[in-house]
């Protein structure tokens, strides 16, 4: 290879690539470094002007405080249960419906597609009140189940659309050859389709998980007793009338972000690697 074409084809693109990657990392991590820095400060130092990046008096007091003084353990448990349930259920039902819309062309299909999408467009602000009324009538007020049902339903259309998009990419010929082999539709769904769309499922599960985890409005209105509070609600409480306890807010946010990250890593291993190993790639 000539020197100049080496430069153009190999070196230059690679440098741009790495510059891009580093810029990306800085861009994504910049606020997190600030969050980490603040979470290790004393409350007084958090307000210093000009701000310090490396804490003068580093302390892990906030990280301990959220568990000890603020019941983070309970919040964590609630959020994890609620978000996981939402993620799994909404992805499952979404995949089911996505498959149904992808492979079958029944009467009213277009209408139902529109219906699914339309339910997404109602702002949560207006739905909370009446939903809360129903919940209290059937005794599910101030329960995790009440929240799970709400999130699951809000998430469902999104999950359906995402899964449908991924399922559409799987050639129908795979379904057909499996049917010829005597496989039932459900069997096709579980054994052929889902493994192939595993990467798409990662996105869908994570999306549903984060939607449930990060919600404030519904958690605020539907739960009220301390044993039911979620992490996001607990963090919002550090924003008081008088002052924001910044270090605690940051510590709580950082710790609160952990489950999603762990879930992602877990999903990558389990779904993408574990399942696609056995699937046939188009």
């Amino acid at each position, binding site marked *: 290879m000539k020197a100049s074409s080496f430069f153009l084809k190999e070196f230059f693109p690679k440098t741009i690539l790495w510059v891009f990657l580093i810029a990306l990392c800085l861009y994504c991590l910049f606020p997190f470094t600030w969050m980490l820095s603040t979470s290790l400060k004393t409350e007084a130092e958090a307000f210093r002007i000009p701000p310090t990046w490396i804490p003068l008096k580093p302390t892990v007091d906030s990280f301990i405080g959220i568990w000890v003084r603020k019941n983070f353990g309970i919040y964590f448990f609630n959020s994890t*249960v609620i978000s996981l349930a939402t993620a799994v259920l909404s992805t499952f039902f979404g995949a089911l419906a996505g498959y149904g819309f992808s492979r079958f062309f029944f009467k009213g299909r277009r209408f139902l597609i529109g219906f699914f999408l339309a339910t997404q467009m109602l702002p949560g602000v207006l739905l909370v009140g009446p939903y809360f009324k129903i919940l*209290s009538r059937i005794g599910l007020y101030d329960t995790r189940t009440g929240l799970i049902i709400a999130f699951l339903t809000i998430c469902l259309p999104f999950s359906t659309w995402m899964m449908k998009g991924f399922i559409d990419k799987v050639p129908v010929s795979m379904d057909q050859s499996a049917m010829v082999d005597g496989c039932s539709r459900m069997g096709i769904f579980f054994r052929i389709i889902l493994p192939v769309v595993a990467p798409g499922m990662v996105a869908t599960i994570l999306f549903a998980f984060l939607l449930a985890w990060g919600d404030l409005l519904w958690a605020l209105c539907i739960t*009220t007793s301390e044993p039911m509070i979620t992490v996001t609600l607990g963090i919002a409480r550090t*924003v008081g009338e*008088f002052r924001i306890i910044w270090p605690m807010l940051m510590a709580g946010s950082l710790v609160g972000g952990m489950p999603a990250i762990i879930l992602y890593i877990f999903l990558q291993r389990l779904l993408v690697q574990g399942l696609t190993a056995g699937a046939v790639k188009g």
Partner: protein
Amino acid sequence: MKKIGIIGICTVVVLALFCFQPAAAEVTLRFSDWHLTEDVWNKSLNEGMAIFHKRYPNIKVTLEPVSYGEKETKYTVESAAGRAPDVFHVHAFSLPMFFGKGFAKDLTPFIEKEGPGFLDAWYPLPLKLMKHNGKIHAMPGDYMTMVLFYNTEMFKAAGLDPNKPPKTWDEFLTYAKKLTRDTNGDGKVDQWGFGTLGAKSPGFSLRFGPFIWSFGADYLTPDMKRSALDSAKAKEAFAFFVELYTKHKVVPPGLTAMGAQDVRTQLAQKKVAMILGSGWTPPIVNKINPDLKAFEVLKAAPAPMKRKQATAIWLSSWVMSPNTKHPNEAWELMKFITSKEIELKWFVDNRVTSSRKDVSGVAPEILNDKFASVLASQLPYGKVEPQIKQWPEIMDTFTTSLQEAVVGMKTPEKALAEAHERINAILAR
């Protein structure tokens, strides 16, 4: 893949088990207060509840904290579904809306049972604000005035006498200009004379009241049917406030994003020398920056005036839910929290003055306190905003205009005129 389906079903089953909630045995009251989320208040409230429980052993009170910014959202949703807490705490300025929707129980029967003269212990203005159609629907709680807080050391450093705080707004401007300076010699101003709110929050109107009212103007006409912002005095007050930022630059940059906590932080961090605040200011400032030694370095003075002394009032109130299953017990709780003994405790623990005359007017703890004495002295000059249900919307549209003037999108004249139009449209609905 079946695994995921099974996991999903198992999750649902496990969750169902967690939903079982045991029924309550004795009388249980639900009590909600945003103060429960504040360290400053939490301890005090819990102690108070312990005392209550000792006196009424058959009444159990569950505490439901709610964050300050979300309380109206939560109480609205709960009340609309008939599931509001038995007793909850709101600003007095939310009351017209809660009253309008029927979310507050009429307390007249309970008050009558207490015998004649029960209400005499309270100041008349707070009581007036608790009335809906002439009947009392809530009990008054904390009652404070907005006063001027200033940093005596910064005064001295600027060559001002810390014992002579500004008495008029014109004096105030002179002081503020002197206090806006470059303290470390790098050529950039790093200290400003006055810190105030510019963000849309309930605290804003508290701090604008001393301006508009002492200039002799008001937001609405006395019959509360039309806007009074087209008066010359209103224009004067509005322009004066806006120009503090745009022309004289005695207020730190970024005003429209400043909420009450930002302003207190500015004071705590010595970025500003003066703010309008109230009883809660010194303890909070002290917590933000103990090195400031807030209790020694800060002093309080009546808010400056233009033509007459006037300041804004802060009033909180206790509401009983109309759907409460235990109205009598709820009343005992309300009576307890607003009793003379406990109101005094709220002062001693948290430095908030009370709407009870027999506490704020009389208690030596208050009269001898450097800050509370000033607060109490201003109570006669306290004014309150129009108690109509459109008020939050009116205030929001007013603040919108103010923000537009402050960031330079419109002249103060034009912005105020637009607010005037819009407020009239709101009232005409």
